[in-house]
């Protein structure tokens, strides 16, 4: 289909575990085990799972931060492994990340201005200092920040403000896809609402696609059109967001939902 912008086919990612003695056979941890995923323009795919389920690894493989052990990542139908330099740059530019801990995702020695300028310098061909200043001045109000924060360091901002800057950094290059890796789990609930609303309104304005990774069922439900439930590197359930949440087909999904509500009653259709 035309509007599939990112596709993962049979993605496998193994990690070599540390050997205790060197003649030991190499043990392998399979973080992601053969996952297929298709992300369309303007769509939000929510990936939910517990820690160790491989959801972050999947996000990083799709975002090109890690090489898959096998399987292919297709960006606009083009295999990531066979891209030339220019195509790779376009891909890099069009897929951005927002990480869990906003403060740690910024270099503490950089000012906000430098943090925001760097992606432009590296990936935007029309970069000049004046252009960057203008872009930054345009983007900051959109994420609800005052333009005078550019002279500050990340440590002078609160967690919520830092996450806004991280969103601004991701948006500066007007990417097609943003991978949100647990992007609200380290901020407070009152700020969480601000960030989620902001992400949604930006999506409406720019038609950005999100790959939304979280362990919080409520957040996933609120954000996602389509939900994948991951356990042990595999997808055990997927489907339309509302359907998965209200009528989970798998006992595990139901257990996740119940636990997050501290509920006893099974609301699983299959049980």
């Amino acid at each position, binding site marked *: 289909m035309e509007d599939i912008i990112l596709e993962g086919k049979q993605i496998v990612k193994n990690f070599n575990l540390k050997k205790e003695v060197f003649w030991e056979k190499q043990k392998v941890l399979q973080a992601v085990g053969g996952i297929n995923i298709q992300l369309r323009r303007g769509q939000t795919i929510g990936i939910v799972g517990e820690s160790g389920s491989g959801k972050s690894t999947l996000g990083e493989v799709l*975002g090109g*931060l890690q090489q898959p052990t096998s399987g292919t990542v297709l960006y606009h139908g083009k295999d990531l492994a066979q891209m030339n330099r220019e195509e790779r*740059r376009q891909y*890099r*530019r069009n897929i*951005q*990340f927002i*990480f*869990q*801990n906003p403060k*740690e*995702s*910024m*270099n*503490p*020695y950089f000012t906000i201005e430098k943090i925001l300028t*760097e*992606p432009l310098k*590296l*990936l935007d061909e029309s970069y000049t200092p004046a252009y960057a200043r203008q872009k930054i001045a345009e983007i900051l109000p959109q994420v609800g920040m005052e333009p005078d924060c550019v002279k500050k360091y990340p*440590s002078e901002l609160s967690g919520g403000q830092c996450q806004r800057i*991280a969103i601004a*950094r991701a948006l500066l*290059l007007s990417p097609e896809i943003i991978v949100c890796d647990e992007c609200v789990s380290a901020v407070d609930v009152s700020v969480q609402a601000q960030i989620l609303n902001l992400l949604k309104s930006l999506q409406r304005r720019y038609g950005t696609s999100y790959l939304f990774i979280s362990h919080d069922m409520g957040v996933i439900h609120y954000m996602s059109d389509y939900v994948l439930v991951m356990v042990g590197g595999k997808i055990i359930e997927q489907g339309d967001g509302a359907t998965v949440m209200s009528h989970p087909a798998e006992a595990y999904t139901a257990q996740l939902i119940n636990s997050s509500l501290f509920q006893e009653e099974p609301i699983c259709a299959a049980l």
Partner: protein
Amino acid sequence: MKNKKPKFSVILGMVLISIILLLCLVSFFWLPYDPDRMDTANRFALPTAAHLLGTDQFGRDVLSRIMVASRSALLVGLCSVSVGALIGLVVGAVAAMSGPRLQSLIMRVIDGFMAFPGILLAMMLVAVLGKGQINAVIAIGIFMIPSFSRLVYSMILENKTRLHIKAARSYGCGPVRIVISHIFPDMLPRMVTQFSSSIGGAILTESSLSFLGLGIQPPSASWGMMLSEARQYVLSYPFIAVAPGVVLLIAVLGFNLLGDGLNDRLVRKGVRS
């Protein structure tokens, strides 16, 4: 930082280093006597108003010779550590940013270098390269590489897993840029510390080489050589070994104290912020 007062060791280190620096700077404008002028009538003189630190076995003025020698000591110290730090930085960074195979290869070679006693390594290198000041710089520089590369290597590995580095990769930073603009500022305090401490070591090694006759060649003056020459007469004229020994002590102690003090101030502060 609540405690803004510089630590005692930093102050003492700075005072000692400035003594040496002063000796060196003054030597360019003024010397009490020509350091090479012999005065056989006035050999082994004890300190007097005319010769503040006495004279040596040829009647040369010891203070003048120490002052001239301080130039080469500082030059060799600074240059060799710079060479070592620069190469060490590159080697460590390459090792830390490359794949597991190359990484372990480089680090095993570095371990091999570290297994040699430093002075032995320097002597071997001088034996290969030949005697002289430049070769001493190269020899000592090579001997400095392992400690710097290990430092850089471990600091990069420590930093590499941090989230802001991952974020930098996500917007297209290559490995070289990551090291230079993202990790280097974090390493700088420890590099400065290591640099300062290493200069002390380098001056000592240079003196040892000169003492053994493998470093700076006569008639140029060097502290190690002065000590070596004094050795023959030390039983009859003990004083001639004192002055170069004390100056060497001041220089090495100064740089080490400064390094220690900087370590406490810069590195700890870095950890806190």
